[in-house]
């Protein structure tokens, strides 16, 4: 057998050996949708529906007297003002392409909820937005109770509202805190030091506050 034929045969055997790993090659050429260039669709239904969803989770005050998305169930800014939709649409989060589906799902649930409970919906706003705050809450308790097929996805969306409010997940933290991000301010997240970092020289009561376990080992471990 010549070297060339031997080489071909060996190459063929190698290819056969690699056949079970065809899925690897497929991974290289089939890329998931590019999640880094998304913008929220210009749809008058989607934005207020998602705002109403976020506002039901972390309620806040209305932005104006004619604000329908925010129910105004609590004083001070809520998840919407804290940037819930900014985070939902934040490219690294990667869920922007799913937002129209989420909004449509919420509105479908709202229509069903209204029919079940004999509620007449205002046709000038999306169905979820047309629900009163108590009904929005009752509906989200149903949707987010963990037993439905959509629960995982809706819980992930809910988590974004929480992360927007409690962590400003779409912003550099130092910028968010210094500019008075409403959620971070509401939970009392501290300002950084002058150098833009968080660090503390006073951090301890500096005194013994309990008796150690009598059988603690020399290196501080349990027996």
């Amino acid at each position, binding site marked *: 057998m010549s070297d060339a034929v031997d080489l071909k045969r060996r190459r063929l055997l190698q290819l056969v050996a690699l056949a079970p790993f065809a899925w690897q090659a497929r991974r290289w050429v089939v890329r998931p949708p590019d999640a880094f260039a998304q913008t929220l669709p210009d749809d008058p239904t989607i934005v207020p529906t998602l705002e109403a969803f976020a506002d039901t989770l972390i309620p806040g005050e209305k932005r104006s007297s004619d604000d329908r998305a925010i129910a105004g169930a*609590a004083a001070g800014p809520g998840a919407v003002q804290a940037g819930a939709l900014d985070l939902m649409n934040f490219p690294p*989060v990667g869920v922007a392409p799913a937002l129209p589906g989420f909004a449509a799902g919420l509105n479908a649930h709202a229509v069903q909820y209204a029919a079940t409970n004999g509620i007449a919906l205002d046709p000038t706003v999306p169905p979820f937005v047309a629900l009163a705050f108590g009904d929005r809450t009752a509906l989200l308790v149903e949707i987010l109770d963990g037993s439905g097929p959509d629960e995982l996805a809706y819980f992930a969306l809910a988590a974004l509202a*929480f992360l927007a409010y*409690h962590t400003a997940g779409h912003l550099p933290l130092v910028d968010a805190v210094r500019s008075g991000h409403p959620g971070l301010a509401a939970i009392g997240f501290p300002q950084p030091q002058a150098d833009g970092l968080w660090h503390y020289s006073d951090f301890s009561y500096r005194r013994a506050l*309990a008796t150690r376990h009598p059988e603690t080992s020399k290196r501080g471990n349990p027996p």
Partner: protein
Amino acid sequence: MSETADVVVIGTGFGGSIPGYYLAAGGARVVMLERGPRLAAEDFAQTFEIGVYTRIVDYIRGTGVDVTAGNCVGGSSVIYFAASLRAPTFVFERMGTLGRRLWPAAISRQTLDPWYRRVEKILPVAQQRWKDVAYAGGVWAAACNRAGHTCNPVPVAVDLKRCTNCNFMVHGCRFDAKRSMLLNYIPAAEACGAEIRPLHEVQAIRPADTPGYRYAVDYLQLDPTDYRVAVGGGTIDARLVIVAAGAMGTPVILQRSATYLGAMPSAVGRYFSPNGDHVTTAVLDEAKVRDLLGLERAPGVGYDAHHIGRPIGTMTYDPLVASAPEFSRFSLQQIYFPPIVNILLDDRVDGPPSWFGVDKRTVTSRWRSWLSVLAMTEDANEGVFGTPPPTGNFVRLSPAASLGQLTFDRAPQTQSGFDAADALTRSIVERDGLARHHLWAAPPNGSAPPNVQSAHPLASCRIGDDPDTSACDDRHELRGHPGIFVTDASAVPTSLCVNPSLTIAALAERASAFLLLRAAEYGVNVATSVRLPGRTASSRASRCEHPA
């Protein structure tokens, strides 16, 4: 021809870095494949911006359990909270629900103590004095004391002089105060020629193509900006393979490899333990912190300091009673989590919703008065991995969230441990109205309890003496597949009642001694005795059989 190496190490956390060092120092050609990126102190940012910390922290949603794990060179040692404790003596005698000892007969606290000592020396581990304990740990100690319990400062793998008490440990330490693998075993391994390749996600192990080599390790190279995207791939033939991809990764790689290597031991992907982790949160009454505990951190301010310090300060060992029945023993540890987790807490108001709405907002407005307590209990190893995903260790839904194939159908024994821990925690923090005790209510699970939240995944390919209930023998070699070793958290047989990092590392130290011997038997030209890693560049090089 495939690329070759004497040893391929899959993963660079505690379980990968330690054997990686010993084998490289012994003279083996070592390649270490890490699915995450390589970052250093200057890259670790104090921010909650998605896309920054999520580069190195994976949050994996399972059924009945959610797991947080590291995803970078250094693995979970980069994101851990550095509590470094030896497991109590009784843990090694546990029988679980099987009615016989779960740990190998060769391993007890006494026999593991010398290996613990080595890790404590190399990390190194520091003893916190009371003046080192941050406010939250102080409040927990004082509350325990007032309730008649002891409470200890926790040993930590932290350079206390460097630590700035910033409480951003989960982001990686930008001050290099936390003693991760990046500061000891990894540079020591590299000094002896080990090659570390970040963003290399191992998919499967199969028989090698190259004569003289046992196994081929197939990997994909990942896009650093989106780990869902592969940008290349390859294969390395190795004489030995060390699987240390973490308890969420190792079983998945081995399950997938069964297609090529033949059946895996039945314990691969079974007996997962979340270390019995169970977190609850007290919302303190600031006035009572002053009046009942006599604490004041500034004039008129009792606490108001949830955000200050290191995440773990103090814990009580009182419920770690060796003679008590199994599943009733646990420790209670003060712990801090960043506001990323605020969604999880319940509002303690009757009726739904329990974790969102107006009442929840009121609870979170008192965030600076929160005091979280981690119970580490004895669970029943009830976690089971399902069918592996097409690639990787779990399905990355987005760069920030993943879906695992892990199911944790909570056993009554595990629940009883959680209930006992809750009862004791509540009795301590609610004594005379010091605080209100809140459970973690999310994510909801229909009529089942909310998912267990664990940052300590263990036991999914555990060591043991019984082939039916352990994937590896007592020297960490995978049953039926000579030359494949599991040296990470998945090898730990049971929950530990303390934070597991030191035990994982001690087991990896112990396993390394056997690995050197086994490597020599399998034809690797390697010294069978290697000294501990040095602390300086020159001392590290002096350990190497063949300096890089």
